[in-house]
């Protein structure tokens, strides 16, 4: 909707301004023509290619990762925020809007984009050698090659510095040993960015699929993010040449900087999931009749709808503000934590509330809500749990660390 045109039309015709339930604050007017076209393009892609299938993928616990990769590659969304190597050097806003629209479809699809662009391509782009960039980035941008990001381990989650995976020198080679757990795209990846302890701190390594000693197996029985591949990676004496290490970074700064990139996208993505829940509840409540009329006429239902709408709009303003800071090069990791924490919390609340508006229908895969609600349990956990982001913000306020 072109809000500007609407407003001026309304002003001309003297009609009372009545905000749209879909863009109550007229936030669309903050977006450029290109941003609006990108958004409508990704939204159409999701409506045409994702939504008709995602309930089945979810039920079966699968994602056609190769297909999604080449679709997103053709759309130009993989690594779009990076420059060179076929990447589009997009604004943070454009990148965020793409995340938002994908996650309005399913958090699993947005996770695919986040992992590929922010967690796998970003470290290669930022810390890789020219050879590493040449080898991987262009084909990752088109989706021909898929990447994954392996930081978490069975005994090392919120405290990744405690990781046990090691990289030992053996002559000029490296030998990697350890286990990584909860790795998105792990078993479908052509290259894994594996973080391991070395003599000079935590280093990143590019491990191509098929390297002897390197194996991936999928984690079964998930009840969340089911339309996404989540794997365990095992590394047993994986021998890598000297140039497999990312030369540009050592220490926890490496993986943490990637996470800041990805979390920024989640601040937008969560708004998409929340929007779907809100809009589904809004429509449903107008059509579902009980006690002789639509349930939308009950005060209690209206309160739920209003809280959801306010949450979505506020979350959007927050995300767009963060994008502005990011484009100006003035964003801090703690500000990104603010966005991830508040918008995912908002989305989860909206999903639960929308679920109740749909009654029994809300628990099925015929409606998107419970799928989003379950997905958001992952989103509130990965990329730094809600608690960890609270501690990040607490530390920023008090200058006191409450982690240990």
């Amino acid at each position, binding site marked *: 909707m072109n809000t500007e045109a609407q407003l001026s039309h309304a002003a001309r015709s003297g009609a009372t301004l009545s905000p749209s339930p879909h863009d109550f604050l007229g936030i669309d007017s903050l977006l450029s*023509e*290109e941003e609006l076209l990108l958004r409508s393009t990704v939204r159409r892609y999701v409506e045409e290619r994702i939504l008709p299938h995602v309930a089945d993928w979810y039920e079966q616990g699968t994602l056609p990762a190769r297909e999604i990769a080449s679709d997103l590659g053709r*759309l130009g969304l993989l690594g779009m925020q990076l420059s060179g190597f076929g990447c589009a050097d997009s604004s943070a806003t454009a990148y965020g809007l793409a995340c938002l629209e994908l996650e309005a479809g399913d958090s699993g699809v947005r996770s695919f984009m986040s992992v590929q662009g922010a967690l796998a391509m970003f470290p290669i782009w930022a810390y890789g050698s020219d050879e590493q960039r040449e080898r991987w980035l262009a084909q990752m941008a088109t989706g021909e090659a898929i990447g994954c990001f392996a930081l978490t381990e069975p005994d090392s989650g919120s405290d990744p510095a405690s990781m046990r995976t090691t990289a030992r020198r053996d002559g000029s080679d490296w030998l990697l040993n350890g286990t990584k757990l909860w790795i998105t795209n792990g078993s479908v990846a052509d290259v894994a960015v594996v973080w391991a302890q070395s003599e000079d701190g935590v280093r990143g390594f590019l491990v191509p699929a098929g390297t002897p000693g390197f194996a991936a197996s999928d984690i079964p029985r998930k009840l969340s993010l089911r339309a996404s591949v989540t794997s365990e990676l095992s590394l047993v004496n994986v021998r890598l040449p000297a140039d497999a290490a990312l030369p540009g970074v050592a220490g926890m700064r490496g993986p943490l900087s990637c996470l800041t990139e990805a979390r920024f996208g989640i601040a937008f993505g969560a708004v998409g999931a929340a929007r779907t829940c809100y809009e589904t509840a809004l429509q449903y409540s107008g059509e579902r009749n009980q006690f002789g009329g639509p349930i939308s006429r009950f005060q209690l239902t209206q309160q739920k709808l209003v809280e959801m709408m306010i949450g979505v709009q506020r979350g959007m303003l927050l995300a767009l503000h963060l994008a502005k800071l990011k484009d100006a090069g003035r964003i801090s990791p703690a500000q990104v934590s603010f966005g991830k924490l508040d918008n995912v919390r908002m989305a989860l609340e909206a999903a639960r509330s929308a679920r109740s508006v749909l009654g029994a229908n809300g628990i099925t895969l015929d409606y998107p809500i419970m799928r989003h609600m379950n997905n958001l349990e992952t989103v509130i956990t990965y990329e730094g749990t809600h608690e960890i982001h609270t501690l990040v913000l607490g530390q920023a306020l008090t200058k006191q660390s409450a982690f240990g």
Partner: protein
Amino acid sequence: MRQRHTHAQRRSSVARRDLPFRVAIRGRRQHNQGVKIAVCVKQIPDPANPGRLDADGKTLARDEKLILDESDSYGVEMALQLAEAAGGEVVLVSMSPTGEVGGIRTALAMGADAAVIISDDALAGSDALGTAKVLAAALRRTQPDLILTATESTDGYTGTVPAQIAELLSLPSVTFAKSVEVGSDGLLVRRQAEYGYDEVACPLPAVVSVTAGVVEPRYPSFRGIMAAKSKPTEMLTLAGLGLEPSEVGWTGARQRIIDVSPVPERGGGEICEDDGTGHERIVALLEELKVL
């Protein structure tokens, strides 16, 4: 929407007529210039939003954001595929009375190279023939080897503009194409028919209307979206085309819209209890409807 075709095929060919302009495709390709394809596209109100009529109650309100008519996206896709295969360029030609360009940007973002937009207050109220005159005048300047259109617009549904353009330009007209091949001596078009498809050969230039659904329109890529704004976009007025305002718009229209009225509400239907004779009532009803 894609129709199954049977083996029934008919071959026919459209005679080369006296052409006002002719750019031999063979000549062009020998000079490595490739084929120049014009696609006529229309911007329409988003069908997803409830339509509104203008204050006069006779035309669709177009004061909100317009989008690329989906039925035009097939012609754009086909043109892009032909230009990619044979080398060449794709130029969009569009009449946009309000000066809106949002929908044309979508087609540029898909990959079209340039756009010619005719915008003039006097265009409001143009009927199909008026539209065809304007597009034909713009196409005469553009000098394409091939002109693609949709079979009909989603908001107007007259379906007459493609043939009118061809007539005004004295070009062969091929309608309802399901596939188009550009060969060294002209076009080979498969045209959709109820019994299968016709194979039609015809010289270039020609006007071909493309059936919706025969190709899968690509999504604009992010790069395409960013590039769209800086692609050459020529804005023309009627004067720039050498057309008189009296030939087009409300004044030039030979079609008069007498009235536009809403579709009558559906009646409640008939509910009959089956007391064992229900089948008789069904047969009687089908006979009333003359389907038996």
